[in-house]
Every structure is written in structure tokens, then in C-alpha cells.
């Protein structure tokens, strides 16, 4: 049915496995979003792919240094149509990260645009790296 020409990008969804016998109440499948995390001198930035998620359908909580991301998919079924070929399942996203104490929880900013969640987490003043100039003696 399809032919591929370039294989520069590949995506496979990984489903969330719940531990401790916990189960989700929502029927939709839940996936682990692909995430990049990088650090600059001032902040730690987290970028996650959450295709199909509206900007106001994301819950971010920080509880004792555990950052949880929950993103709910808002895409709907097409009425009057049936699925004839399927490579992805529109699902929700869930992922948890343990943060170090150097993040200032009050200053975390989150932006969702074009199916990508970006979290900017500024470091607290004390955690920023200070360069100490070495004077020639």
C-alpha cells in the first residue's frame, strides 16, 4: 500500500505499562511520549511529542520532585467513515521524571504548540554555575 523513499525519521509508539496493579480509568490507550531533555546554564528544557493534544488538555504536576506529564488526546472518530488502514492509535500520553532539587518549581513554564509540549524549568539561583575567573598571579 505504501512505499518509503527516505528513512530519516522513524517513530514507534511505546505503550505505558502501569506498575503496582494500577489501571487507567480512561479507555484510550496511553503512550510514553518521545522526549528530549537538555540543559543550559539557566534552565532545564523538556520537549515532548504529543500529537493530537490540545493546548489546554495537558496536566503537569510537580510532587516532591516528581514531575508528571499527562496529555489527553482530543482527536475524534470521523463519523460515517471506517478505518481501512491504521499505523497509529490516537492515545493519551503519560510520563514521569524525577527532578533534582535545583529546579525552581514556581518558575516552570509550559507551552503546547503543533503537538509538541515544551517545559522550561529555570534553575534556582543557588544551582546556577558560576564561573570563577582565574587571575594571573
Amino acid at each position, binding site marked *: 500500500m505504501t512505499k518509503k523513499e527516505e528513512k530519516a525519521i522513524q517513530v514507534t509508539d511505546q505503550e505505558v505499562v502501569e506498575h503496582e496493579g494500577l489501571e487507567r480509568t480512561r479507555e484510550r490507550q496511553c503512550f510514553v511520549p518521545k522526549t528530549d531533555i537538555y540543559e543550559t546554564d539557566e534552565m532545564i528544557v523538556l520537549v515532548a511529542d504529543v500529537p493530537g493534544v490540545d493546548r489546554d488538555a495537558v496536566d503537569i504536576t510537580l510532587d516532591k520532585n516528581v514531575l508528571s506529564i499527562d496529555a489527553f488526546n482530543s*482527536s475524534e472518530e470521523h463519523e460515517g467513515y471506517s478505518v481501512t488502514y491504521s499505523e497509529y492509535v490516537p492515545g493519551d500520553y503519560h510520563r514521569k521524571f524525577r527532578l533534582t532539587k535545583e529546579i525552581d518549581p514556581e518558575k516552570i513554564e509550559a507551552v503546547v504548540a503543533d503537538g*509538541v509540549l515544551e517545559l522550561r524549568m529555570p534553575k534556582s539561583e543557588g544551582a546556577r554555575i558560576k564561573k570563577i575567573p582565574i587571575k594571573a598571579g
Partner: protein
Amino acid sequence: MYRRFRMPSVWRELDQLQREMNRLMEVPFGMRSFSPLGFPAINIWTSEDKLIITAELPGINADDIDLNITADSLTLSGERKQEQMGDEVKYHRQERSYGKFTRTIQLPFMVDPDKAQAVFKNGILEISLVRAEVDKPKKIAVKAR
């Protein structure tokens, strides 16, 4: 048919078993998910004379998506650009990928390229296509003599 009757009955039984197994493995169509054959992952929805193709394209600018439609195929191409970061950036993890992509999809029926519509929302590209007039099935009236 003649040959079949001469088969030892054990083969016939195996045949039957195989058919039953196949039926057990059958998943209702539409529930079955194929692993993506390329980027982006797509879903195809059809009705009698319409077609919707959705593709997961998170983090891609709508201007960076190229769509080419012919009567029976659709080519999706574009690029996911990586943000330019300074040298002082340290990566903790990098799971998302970047780069150019091209994918051609053979459509299940002929479409009218002029009636194609595409919407990009929340990282999902949705292309609506309409079946071409010439390709629409025709009803043949059966006359009584």
C-alpha cells in the same frame, strides 16, 4: 474437486484445523494496527465516496509540509527542523528525531485532486479527498423481460 476426494482424510482434517486457527487469529478490521512503514505514521479512513488521511507530524511547521496529489497517489514530504542551540547546551536525553521525510501513499480509489483539502492541527495533518466522478461505482438496473 475430484482430487480432493482422493486425499487421505488426515489432510482434510489438517486443512479444516488450519482454517479454524485462521479464524481464531482474525481481528476485526480497523482494530488492527500496522507498524509504520515510514515517517509519518498514517491512518486512512474511508466512506463510500470520501477519504480521510491523517498523519502524525508533531513539531513541524505547516509551511514545511509539502503535499502532492495525483488522481491515485498522495506524496507527503517535508522536514522536521531542529532548533539551533548554542554550544553550551548539554543533552540529558534525545529521543525525538529530525530530518527530511518523503512518503507516497497509494490511494484506495481515484480522487479529484481539485477537491482535496488539508488541515493541520495539534501536530496532526488531516487530508480530505473526494472520489473522482469517473471512478464512482455505477448501478446497473436489472430489467425483467
